């Protein structure tokens, strides 16, 4: 089950914790992986570690032209069409809404939501022709529950869910599924930035009693990318240790 041999995947934010775990998991199931992100060194290191079937293609997701070209570049690097797109890249610019600057709002929306839309739009063309495709966006529990101090981030993540449901309806007749994975509290560079006090408060709210890992998210992505999940579309798979049961 869940064999991805012969499939090519593009993972954005692959230099990060969750993105790296997702790329490794897809690769372990046989997929060829194109690793995108902003940190060239980290991408090259991951590609070298994976060995064959892996390429690093850096991209600044704030740059519209670069984003619009990325799917084509990924396909050239891999020498095949793109079968699986994982919109994982994300950034935060936290702050109370009353103090949030327009730039902080748009920086987050541009990368987390608009880039995901542009990449999906580009990827869908080839997927339509080949009658097979998987678009998986990494959203967040806060896209559904909201989170004080993260109006921009929560809006971008909620946006991914609404976008995915809409795309799912458009391309379902062509064998393309569009889904989201919504991590809860996952150990990553992003959660490392939280204070100990914030962390202990959050752990108390997780029935599983522990933070999740990148591998927990990667397993959900592998499932949604698989042939076996072909009848699952427009869904958000919550991976959060019971933190929110929705």
């Amino acid at each position, binding site marked *: 089950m869940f064999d991805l041999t012969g499939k090519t995947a593009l993972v954005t934010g692959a230099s990060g914790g969750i993105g790296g775990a997702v790329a490794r998991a897809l690769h372990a199931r046989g997929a060829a992986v194109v690793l995108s992100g902003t940190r060239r060194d980290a991408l090259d290191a991951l590609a070298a570690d994976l060995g064959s079937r892996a390429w690093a293609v850096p991209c600044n997701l704030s740059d519209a032209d670069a984003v619009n070209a990325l799917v084509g570049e990924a396909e050239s690097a891999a020498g095949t069409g793109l079968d699986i797109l994982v919109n994982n890249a994300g950034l935060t610019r936290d702050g109370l809404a009353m103090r949030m600057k327009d730039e902080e709002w748009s920086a987050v929306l541009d990368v987390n939501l608009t880039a995901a839309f542009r990449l999906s739009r580009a990827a869908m*063309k080839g997927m*339509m*022709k080949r009658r097979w495709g998987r678009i998986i966006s990494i959203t967040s529990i806060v896209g559904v529950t909201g989170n004080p101090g993260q109006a921009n981030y929560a809006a971008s993540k909620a946006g991914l869910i609404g976008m995915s449901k809409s795309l799912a309806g*458009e*391309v379902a*007749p*062509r064998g393309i599924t569009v889904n989201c994975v919504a991590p809860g509290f996952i150990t990553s560079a992003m959660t490392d930035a939280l204070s100990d006090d914030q962390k202990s408060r959050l752990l108390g709210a997780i029935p599983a009693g522990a933070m999740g890992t990148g591998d927990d998210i990667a397993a959900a992505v592998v499932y949604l990318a698989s042939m076996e999940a072909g009848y699952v579309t427009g869904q958000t798979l919550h991976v959060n240790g019971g933190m929110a049961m929705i």
Partner: protein
Amino acid sequence: MSDVAERVKKIVVEHLGVDEAKVTENASFIDDLGADSLDTVELVMAFEEEFQCEIPDDAAEKILTVKDAIEFINANAK
């Protein structure tokens, strides 16, 4: 001219799975040939590939019939 028309009709027959006799020049993709909006996007992509041309979105929106497609391609393809 006739070559373009034949190739356009062949693409339409293949993509929409309709009887060749139905694909007249005045046939509307949506009203006469049963295409949905996704089919029309795919047809435009297929025309672009077959004729090595780019069909911008605003032009694509005006390609509603077989004749529209043939005329656009005759005017724009290399």
